[in-house]
């Protein structure tokens, strides 16, 4: 174990930066593209204590722009962990009972190997020389980390959005190492609409003159404008029409009303600008390209002749799938498809559909019924496995 290296300065010297696991040439990471990473890193953060039988480990997988700081202060932004509402002592994922691990995905920009990292071969940031990665590669990297931590079986793998897809991939790739999986607000494949929104975001980045063919690191700039627009477009897909209307309506930013100019007149515009500007302070544009591409490529059934059920045939993993009614990025019907496939494969699966008007982002918010489902499911799995 060692300290991770971030591309941005941390807020204060004593900030909790988590850990990093370095893998040398003796343990290369095989990638779906056929390429290999021979010296690579996974940055991660843990909470709670691993019990003696190593049976209480829960892996949290983060979403597209998330990171390992799931339940503690972000060392660059200083903001609370992105799922502190879910994880901590006495919370639905109780760190008094469980050992919680969250790692930055491969391709990310919070210490795990990614395009912003220095390529050991050249001494310069990888940029576009970093190989294209897939969700399965992300999960393969995590499996190396879990192995190094001395954990044979994970009590549960869970996450929302891209995190949910990683949970599905874990269950498909390593069924004997996953006691339970909880994919939340996700799908077994990226839809045409999902890919379309990703492409808009990527084109915004590529169109920024400061992107410089992905070599912006060498010029001391970043394609902030493009990355910010990418975030704004994506952020709309995380909300719902009714949530936007409820939060902002047509309310004006200034008491003077309309400006008859192109500055933000409406509160909803200012909100999106804010989302874009805080995002570029913590995220790398090339990482956005790589991770969003990985999500485009995700189609779990495609690895099994188009039959999703085959991905889980014979699996003893217990599943609980959670969907939100107003999520139009990964609508309930896509989540339910997974449940039906699991049923067809005779797996033990529960499917919970939560009524909410908060859209896709509901999984990050205060949704008591989600907390009840997570607490109940983990509790029953832990009891079954004899975890105190």
């Amino acid at each position, binding site marked *: 174990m060692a300290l991770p290296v971030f591309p941005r300065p941390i807020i204060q010297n004593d900030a909790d930066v988590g850990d990093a696991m370095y893998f040398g040439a003796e343990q290369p990471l095989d990638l779906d593209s056929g390429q290999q990473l021979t010296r690579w890193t996974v940055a991660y953060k843990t909470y709670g204590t691993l019990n003696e039988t190593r049976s209480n480990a829960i892996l949290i997988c983060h979403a597209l722009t998330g990171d390992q700081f799931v339940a503690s202060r972000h060392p660059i932004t200083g903001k609370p962990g992105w799922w502190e509402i879910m994880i901590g002592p006495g919370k639905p994922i109780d760190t008094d009972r469980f050992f919680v691990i969250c790692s930055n995905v491969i391709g990310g920009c919070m210490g795990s190997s990614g395009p912003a990292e220095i390529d050991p071969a050249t001494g310069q940031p990888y940029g576009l020389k970093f190989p294209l990665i897939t969700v399965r590669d992300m999960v393969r990297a995590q499996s190396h980390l879990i192995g190094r931590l001395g954990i044979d079986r994970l009590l549960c793998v869970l996450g929302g959005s891209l995190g949910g897809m990683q949970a599905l991939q874990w269950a498909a790739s390593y069924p004997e190492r996953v006691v339970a999986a909880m994919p939340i607000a996700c799908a077994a494949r990226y839809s045409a609409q999902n890919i379309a929104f990703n492409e808009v975001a990527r084109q915004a980045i590529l169109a920024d003159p400061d992107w410089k063919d992905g070599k912006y690191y060498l010029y001391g700039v970043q394609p902030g404008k493009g990355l910010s627009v990418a975030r704004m477009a994506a952020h709309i897909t995380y909300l719902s029409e009714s949530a936007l209307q409820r939060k902002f309506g047509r309310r004006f930013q200034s008491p003077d009303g309309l400006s008859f100019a192109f500055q933000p007149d409406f509160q909803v515009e200012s909100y999106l600008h804010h989302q874009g500007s805080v995002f570029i302070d913590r995220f790398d544009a090339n990482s956005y390209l790589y991770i969003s591409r990985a999500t485009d490529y995700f189609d779990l059934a495609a690895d099994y002749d188009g039959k999703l059920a085959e991905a889980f045939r014979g699996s003893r993993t*217990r*599943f*609980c799938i959670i969907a939100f009614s107003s999520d139009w990025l990964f609508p309930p019907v896509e989540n*339910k498809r997974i*449940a*039906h496939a699991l*049923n*067809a494969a*005779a797996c*033990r*699966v*529960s*499917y*919970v*559909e*939560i*009524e909410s008007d908060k859209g896709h982002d509901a999984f990050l918010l205060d949704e008591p*019924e989600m907390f*009840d*489902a997570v*607490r*109940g*499911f983990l*509790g*029953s*799995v832990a*009891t*079954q496995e004899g975890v105190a």
Partner: protein
Amino acid sequence: MSAVDGLRADGLRADLAAIADMIPLRTRVLDIGCGDGTLLEYLAETKNVDGRGLELSQQNVNACVGRGLPVIQGDADADLAEYPSQVFDFVILSQTIQATRNPKEVLGHLLRIGRKAAVSLPNFGHWRVRLGLLTQGRMPVTRRLEHQWYDTPNIHLCTIADFVALAKECGAEVEKALAIDEAGTARPMRADAWGPNLLADGAVFLLKGTAAG
């Protein structure tokens, strides 16, 4: 649904207890409209059954998840078509068929998905119901059917004779038929007899699809 039967000593509703008695050890069971999972849990504990549930209410689904029972949130009318054929030994539909939009289609799916189907229902042919309609000229409201006509979830009520006719139309063979009286006692009946259709509070059927062989 809204119908309430007498409880047995083990706390199970009479029709559920009658159904539980029909289920052999270590079978695969799908309970449609499984509520808070009482029957599934009972079957798992006493008969080592591998059970699954389908349930509409969010609260009930979370109750099942907390009990460690696999349950799909959804409704019988929309979801049963997604289930593969002949994957369960038994499919249970307790006090639910009268609340489905398309009972014939639902029953067809039951017989397709499971090798056998156990169905319980309230009997709209009970003499109190008949007498209420005859004497008052109003839609009957009884202890078991407590809703007014305009707010009842029971949109497709039927008599025991009606259900037997539907089962026949769906190509089902009645393997067992039980009449349940007001005290919650289950007694074997002849499915086509007129007596139970007049006197029974509810009924439980064990059906076998002829296509299942």
